[in-house]
């Protein structure tokens, strides 16, 4: 993956730029020594690394504004960073950029139950948002598997989803308002505790803009009362096709589970070895979870299990206790960790129309043989968001490139069947060069216009999302 050449003029001025940043921030909030900036050299796409010019850790919106003003005046690119768990390289630095981390902005500003929202600073982790309201019987719905670590900032940047978004939607459906600092240091309030926009829906386009339109420092999030209970059922099938048909039939039957998760054999095996969740040894496994009172759960699971039985499951296990539910989820939740134990892997994130599931899984299998690289599939089946994990050996010459080529083929396949390159992880650098497989040049141009308006000098996270060749003129004109 190519990154633009760093601007030597900026690197030369490092000392002055750092000095200016130190004037507007406390001393320990400006990180510039080489051994320290290394901590910011990558996100969770660890194959690509580059220490930034400097990293700053402002502790208030005013400090963020001051930093951006300096960088704007100096013409220094800025890469916003939450917790650095992006799998797409969204928070990957360039050597001439300042990483603006919001980790010190982690407070809860207000919780309001009558109006059903919480206002937080965006460096707060996803899980600790729910943590702040849980005891009172509430939760924040979007639940990426990385929720222990990832920050609301990055969730907004990537419009992150989670296992339960089939029912509750993704970040954008649960975001009511933000405080955002524009690249020139202007602070804007967008949205609020009310439900709709007075004019153009700017909040809608900011969410998922991968740190390219502004730095979000505070957010008003919708919170929900916790359901009375939830219960998963585990189903094992002889083939991916049958599991895929079962998903489609459940959806058509009029029940809407909160989650339908899918794992294939390689993934089941790996997680079983790692977590010992007691999964059956079969080709495909579904975890379907429903919510409500015990009676409501019984009713919904009744319908779902009846459908499952029509597809001859090799295993059909309804959880009988909280402990068993936790065990059923344990394997799914540790799937990425399990794969990481046995191999290096690349996690893809394309979405497909649910009815294309069997076809796409078959094609992935064929490609896997062609490339000689194994794939494990684990994903949110209800909404067609796939996560093929391609296993490779990073220490072996040429394997990363091969893996990337395989990944690109899978993503093109997703687009070909009517889907898209990324369902929740974002484009970052990872899918940047595939954008023209999904969009016509005019489609991309329309998106670039939006950035032109918010960030006319193209200083915010400029090397991401769009193919470098497409943005080159804009980035250079700005420099």
């Amino acid at each position, binding site marked *: 993956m190519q990154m633009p050449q760093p601007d030597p003029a900026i690197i030369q001025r490092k000392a002055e730029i750092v000095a200016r940043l130190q004037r507007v921030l406390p001393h320990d909030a400006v990180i510039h020594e080489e051994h320290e900036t290394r901590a910011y050299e990558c996100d969770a796409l660890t194959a690509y690394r580059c220490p930034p010019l400097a990293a700053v850790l402002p502790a208030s919106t005013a400090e963020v504004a001051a930093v951006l003003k300096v960088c704007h005046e100096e013409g220094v690119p800025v890469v916003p960073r939450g917790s650095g768990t992006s799998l797409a390289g969204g928070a990957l630095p360039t050597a001439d950029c300042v990483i603006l981390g919001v980790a010190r902005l982690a407070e809860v500003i207000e919780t309001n139950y009558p109006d059903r929202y919480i206002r937080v600073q965006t460096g707060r982790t996803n899980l600790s948002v729910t943590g702040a309201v849980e005891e009172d019987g509430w939760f924040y719905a979007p639940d990426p598997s990385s929720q222990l670590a990832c920050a609301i900032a990055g969730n907004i940047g990537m419009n992150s989803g989670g296992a339960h978004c089939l029912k509750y939607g993704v970040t954008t459906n649960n975001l009511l308002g933000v405080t955002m600092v524009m690249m020139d240091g202007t602070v804007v309030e967008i949205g609020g505790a009310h439900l709709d926009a007075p004019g*153009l829906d700017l909040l*809608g*386009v900011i969410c998922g803009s991968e740190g390219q339109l502004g730095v979000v420092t505070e957010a008003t999030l919708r919170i929900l009362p916790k359901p009375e209970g939830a219960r998963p059922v585990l189903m094992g099938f002889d083939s991916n096709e049958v599991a895929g048909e079962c998903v489609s039939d459940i*959806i058509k039957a009029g029940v809407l589970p909160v989650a339908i998760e899918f794992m294939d054999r390689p993934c089941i095996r790996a997680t079983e070895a790692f977590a010992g969740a007691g999964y059956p040894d079969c080709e495909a496994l579904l975890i379907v979870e429903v919510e409500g009172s015990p009676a409501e759960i019984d009713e919904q699971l009744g319908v779902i299990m009846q459908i499952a039985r029509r597809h001859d499951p090799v295993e059909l296990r309804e959880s009988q206790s909280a402990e068993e539910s936790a065990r059923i989820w344990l394997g799914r939740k540790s799937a990425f960790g399990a794969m990481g134990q046995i191999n290096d892997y690349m996690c893809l994130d394309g979405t497909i129309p649910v009815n294309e599931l069997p076809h796409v899984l078959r094609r992935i299998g064929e490609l896997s043989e062609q490339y000689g690289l194994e794939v494990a599939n684990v994903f949110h089946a209800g909404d067609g968001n796939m996560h093929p994990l391609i296993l490779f050996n990073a220490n072996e010459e040429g394997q990363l490139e091969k893996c990337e080529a395989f990944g690109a083929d899978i993503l093109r396949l997703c687009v070909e069947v009517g889907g*898209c390159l990324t369902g929740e992880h974002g484009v970052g650098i990872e899918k940047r060069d595939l954008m023209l497989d999904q969009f016509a040049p005019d489609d991309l141009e329309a998106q670039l216009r939006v950035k032109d308006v918010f960030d006319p000098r193209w200083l915010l996270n400029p090397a991401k999302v769009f193919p470098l060749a497409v943005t080159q003129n804009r980035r250079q004109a700005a420099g």
Partner: protein
Amino acid sequence: MLTPRDEAELSEAIAGASGALRITGGGTRPSGRTRGEVLSTGHLSGIRLYEPGALTIVAGAGTPVTEVEEALAAQNQRLPFEPIDHRRLLEQEGVPTIGGMVAVNASGPRRIQAGACRDSLIGVRFVDGAGTVIKNGGRVMKNVTGYDLVKLLAGSWGTLGVMSELSFKVLPGIAATATLRLGGLAAEGAVAAMSAALGSPYEVSGAAYLPDEGDVILRIEGFEASVAYRAERLSGLLERFGAARTLTDRAEEASRWRAVRDAAACAPSEGGAGDVWRISVRPSDGPQVAERLGSRMRLVDWGGGLIWAVVPEGQPLRRELAGIAGHATLLRAAPETHAALGMFHPEPEALAAVSRGLRARFDPRGILNPGLMDGASAAA
């Protein structure tokens, strides 16, 4: 009148336009001061793809809302957001289209539970002010590939482009409904009761207050047994606000929710003459708004967050609501009033500048619905 029959003709019509265009779908929501030659999307009609097993439908922007709803109903599915039909309120005839519905982000009582129109919209094809065809989003419900122009187009009132094709995420149909009625409540108690209901785990899908009657109505939907169970639990929870009655007449129940959805209390036949304002606030500010509005307040929806008012012509209502966070849209008024007060709530200058900038880039000649949503700032 321009009536393109497909997207290519739409693109030609816009590229070739020499002056202002006034975009219409079914012509049922002609608000504001816009002028110019009429460009109708009425012929860009028809369902292009419907995949019940994937919960998605794709249709031309000129497709009547009812056509989409009927196709969905035949498979026991539906649009989640219960779009408002503006005809009674704005005294219009014609057939509402999905393009118009999206252009105004039309969302009804179920918005509090299922999200707004913009939350169900997953893909859009549109033609910008230069005649360029642009697509964004697609037909899958999880998609973060590039910027979300889908949301930006929803509620843009035709000012950024003319939509030609739309994709929606849909939901399974509703097996059973129950509506609880609490009587004798003033605004403060009403909002408190609605907040208590919406703060419960019983999944309330509608929470409205009818000030004239002093009634709060609360709706629960789902499988039959589950609806009965939740209705009972909810009545118990709300005991301190009075005895909740369940509406037993199905027809009355449906017509009540339709009336809330369409803000019937503000229709000339019921609310009388005057300007109609749509006020969006945080629910707990509702009582304060109610106090300032007095009898001008006609209806409260979204658990207190959406307030409908009918006021004597020309009253500058925004001034009276100063200090309360949120916004007020002047939905129905005479042209002079719209000109004097502005239909949309003024935004702070930094945001107004962004809105103007977007509009200038998507419609450089300023020909799409000029005069509508013109990005006035609070300072102006």
